[in-house]
């Protein structure tokens, strides 16, 4: 368990490895969108990891990238259609960024570096850890942006909001706009580096 938590911080796809940035920043204006995006990405990641690891012996080496892309694109289309049918509101607010999950480097990256070499069960585990890391990174960015930029937190589909006294009357609007996202990401990345680095140092001190 500790190992999983450690790898969520240390190998966090967004904050430590810089993968999957494009869609994540654009949808991180509210926590709600961030969770929706994480769920969609997770479904695609899980599906493509399972299929690719199951077919890893059948897919010829020369064309493995196009084959992966087709598999990923199929799952993205699936998720896109499911979202349009059951969560039209969310699907509308994520817009063009759902089809863009295809080119999210996390998914192709995991397919290439993990699912193509490991068994199905291990690939499912990998998808869970990566998906969770992606969700945490994305939600962290969204939380900072929504709290500072709008002075509120929106919870779930019910639309209930928590207003933060002081901030909700005079929010720092810049955080809702694109520049704010980049700045928040920069500082969060530095923070996560700090967190990831402290861990082994502390452990070695205890051992001594």
């Amino acid at each position, binding site marked *: 368990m500790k190992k999983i938590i450690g790898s969520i911080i240390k190998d966090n796809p967004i904050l430590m490895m*810089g993968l999957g*940035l*494009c869609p994540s920043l654009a949808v991180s204006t509210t926590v709600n969108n961030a969770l929706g995006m994480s769920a969609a990405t997770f479904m695609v990641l899980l599906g493509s990891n399972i299929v690719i690891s199951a077919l890893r012996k059948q897919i010829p080496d020369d064309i493995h990238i196009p084959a992966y892309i*087709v598999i990923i694109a199929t799952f993205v289309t699936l998720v896109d259609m499911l979202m349009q049918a059951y969560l039209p509101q969310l699907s509308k607010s994520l817009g063009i960024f759902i089809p*863009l999950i295809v080119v999210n480097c996390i998914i192709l990256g995991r397919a290439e570096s993990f699912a193509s070499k490991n068994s199905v069960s291990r690939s499912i585990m990998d998808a869970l850890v990566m998906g969770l890391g992606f969700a945490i990174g994305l939600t962290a960015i969204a939380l900072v942006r929504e709290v500072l930029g709008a002075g509120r937190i929106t919870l779930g589909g019910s639309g209930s909001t928590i207003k933060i006294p002081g901030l909700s009357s005079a929010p720092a609007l810049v955080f809702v*706009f694109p520049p704010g996202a980049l700045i928040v990401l920069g500082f969060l990345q*530095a923070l996560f580096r700090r967190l990831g680095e402290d861990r082994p140092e502390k452990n070695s001190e205890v051992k001594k």
Partner: protein
Amino acid sequence: MTYIGIIFTYVFVSNLVLTQFLGLCPFIGVSNKTENAVGMGFAVMFVMSTASLITWAFQHFVLIPLNVVFLQTVTFILVIASIVQLVEMVVRKTSPPLYKALGIYLPLITTNCGVLGIALISVNEDYNAVESFLAGLSAGLGFLVALLFMSAIRERLELERVPKYLRGTPIAFISGGLMALAFMAFDKALLANIIGA
């Protein structure tokens, strides 16, 4: 929208990298040196303009007549991947020096979300063929401009004393954010003033 309007929109007002977050990975990845930035920028510009044109053709002559618009994502990404592959082969055959300069960036372009992004945007906005091509071209130009500025900033940052944890990508993101802040000056109102629409 007029053609000038489209160019101005995608180079400045809706700059893909700085306002839409499309193509951030190469933006951070290859912006540490100016020469790399120029190479990548031109390669992306070329792929974006041809890809928007060809995906437009696919959308209107294949997907809509056959009533299979739901295959859009799959088709577009395959078209883009083949264009990139084709460009790579053509450049390698015809101009070895150019290939040497661009070669390593070409495969990366397939996963540049900006290329798929601008193709999808053009389709969503219902552009005609010329407009799609122009949108792709100017989006690529916008990418080049942003990448060039960013690399200039990063080359100077290397000489500065940056706090330990902020070194590398974090400081690049923060300076990118500040640059995006400057680009916010180009908004729809300014656009309307300039082209008089």
